[in-house]
C-alpha cells in the first residue's frame, strides 16, 4: 500500500501528469489557453504512429511468441464483455436510461489509446518490459464493445442504426488503421527501420505526450465545466469504480494468458480505460438520442484522470505483485 502510494506520488509528479493537470486547471479557470484542433490531431497521429511502430519493431526483434493471437482474442473477449458489466453497474447505481447506459458502456468496453501510451511510458521509465504486440491488442479492443452496446440497446427495444457503412467506419477508423499499419511497418522494417526514424519517434516522444496531455486536460476541463448537472454522484462513482472492475477483469484474463508483468499491467490499463475518440463518433451515428456530453465527460473528465494518476501505478503494482515481477 505504502509502495503504491509512493508510486502514485512519483507518477503524479511527472511532467506528463502535471501537464494534464495544468490543462484541466486552465480550462476550469476559463483561461483561453487552447491547442488548435489541427495540432491536437497531428500529435495524436504522431503518438499512434510511434507507439504502433515501436510495438512492431519489438515483435520483429523477439519474434511472435505464440501468445499474440491468444492475447488478441483475450482482448476482444474483454471488449465484448465489459460493456455488459458496465451496463449492469450503471443501471444499478445511476438513473441513466437504457440508451444512455448502453452508450456509456460502449465507451468503457473500448479503450483509450492515450492512457495506454502513458502507461507504456511509465513502464519504460521503470524499466519494466512488455510484449510489443500489446499495441495490436489495443487496436483489437477498440470496436467489439460497440457491438455489445448496440445489442443491449436492441434488446431493450430502442432502435439503433447499425448498417454496413457504420461497420466500415468503425473497423477502418483512422486510429485503428494507423496503429495497425504502423505496427505492420515496424514489424516489416525491424531494427533497420527503427534506426532510420528513431530520433523522430523515440527521443521526442515523452515531450509530445506532455503537450498532448495538456490538450487532453483542456478538453476534459471544458467538458467538466459544461457538464454541470449532467453528472450525477452515481455517474461519477461509476467513472471511478468501473476502471477498477475493468482492471480486475483484465488482470484475470492476462494471468490466464500468462502475460509478462508489463503486458499484464497494460492489459489491465486497456480494460480499465474508456474510449473518447472512436466510440463517441460511432455512438453519434448509431445512438443519436444518447447524450454525448455524458459519455465524454465521464470517460475523459473522470476515468481518464483517475487512471492517469491513481490507476496506472496501482495496476502496475498489482501486476508486479501477482506475477512476482
Amino acid at each position, binding site marked *: 500500500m505504502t509502495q503504491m502510494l509512493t508510486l502514485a506520488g512519483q507518477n503524479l509528479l511527472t511532467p506528463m501528469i502535471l501537464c494534464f493537470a495544468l490543462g484541466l486547471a486552465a480550462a476550469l479557470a476559463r483561461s483561453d489557453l*487552447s*491547442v*488548435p*484542433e489541427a495540432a*491536437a*490531431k497531428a500529435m*495524436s497521429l504522431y503518438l499512434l504512429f510511434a507507439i504502433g511502430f515501436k510495438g512492431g519493431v519489438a515483435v520483429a526483434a523477439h519474434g511472435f511468441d505464440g501468445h499474440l493471437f491468444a492475447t488478441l482474442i483475450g482482448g476482444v473477449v474483454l471488449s465484448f464483455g465489459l460493456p455488459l458489466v458496465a451496463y449492469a453497474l450503471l443501471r444499478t447505481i445511476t438513473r441513466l436510461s437504457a440508451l444512455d447506459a448502453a452508450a456509456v458502456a460502449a465507451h468503457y468496453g473500448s479503450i483509450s489509446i492515450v492512457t495506454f501510451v502513458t502507461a507504456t511510458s511509465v513502464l519504460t521509465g521503470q524499466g519494466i518490459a512488455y510484449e510489443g504486440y500489446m499495441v495490436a491488442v489495443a487496436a483489437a479492443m477498440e470496436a467489439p464493445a460497440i457491438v455489445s452496446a448496440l445489442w443491449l440497446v436492441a434488446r431493450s427495444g430502442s432502435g439503433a*442504426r447499425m448498417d454496413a*457503412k457504420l461497420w466500415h*467506419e468503425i473497423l477502418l477508423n483512422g486510429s485503428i488503421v494507423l496503429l495497425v499499419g504502423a505496427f505492420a511497418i515496424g514489424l516489416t522494417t525491424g531494427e533497420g527501420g527503427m534506426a532510420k526514424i528513431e530520433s523522430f519517434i523515440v527521443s521526442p516522444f515523452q515531450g509530445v505526450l506532455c503537450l498532448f496531455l495538456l*490538450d487532453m486536460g*483542456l*478538453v476534459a476541463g*471544458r467538458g467538466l465545466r*459544461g457538464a454541470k448537472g449532467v453528472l450525477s454522484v452515481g455517474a461519477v462513482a461509476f467513472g471511478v469504480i468501473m476502471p477498477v472492475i475493468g482492471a480486475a477483469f483484465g488482470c484475470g484474463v492476462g494471468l490466464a494468458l500468462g502475460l509478462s508483468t508489463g503486458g499484464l499491467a497494460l492489459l489491465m490499463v486497456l480494460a480499465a480505460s474508456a474510449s*473518447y*475518440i*472512436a466510440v*463517441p*463518433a*460511432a455512438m*453519434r*451515428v448509431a445512438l*443519436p*438520442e444518447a*447524450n*454525448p*456530453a455524458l459519455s465524454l465527460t465521464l470517460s475523459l473528465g473522470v476515468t481518464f484522470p483517475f487512471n492517469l494518476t491513481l490507476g496506472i501505478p496501482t495496476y502496475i503494482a498489482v501486476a508486479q505483485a501477482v506475477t512476482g515481477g
Partner: protein
Amino acid sequence: MQTHAAKRVEIIIEAPMESRLTDALITAGVTGFTVLPVLGGSGRSGQWSREGQLGRAGMVAVICLIRPEALDGLLQAAFAVVERHIGVVSVTDAQVLRAERF
C-alpha cells in the same frame, strides 16, 4: 446581370453524419454542395467548441444551391438523415448566376 431564382439550403449537422448526408443529397439528385467548417456553437444539447478536439467531433455546415422545384426532394432526403440527430436545416430564397450549372 441575368440571375435565376434558386434556393439556398444550409444544413448544420454533426461531423460523423456528414458523409451520410452528402450521400443522401447525391442520391436525391443534388448536383452540387459545399461543406464549411464550424468552430463551435450552442443549442439545446449545450455549448461546444472544436478546439483541441480529436476524432470526427463537432459539426459542419453543408450549403446547397438548387432550383426551387428540387427543394422538396432535397429536404426530404436531408430530413431522413438529420431526423434523429441534432442540427438545423434552413432555406433561403436566392438568385444565382449561370443557372445552367444547377
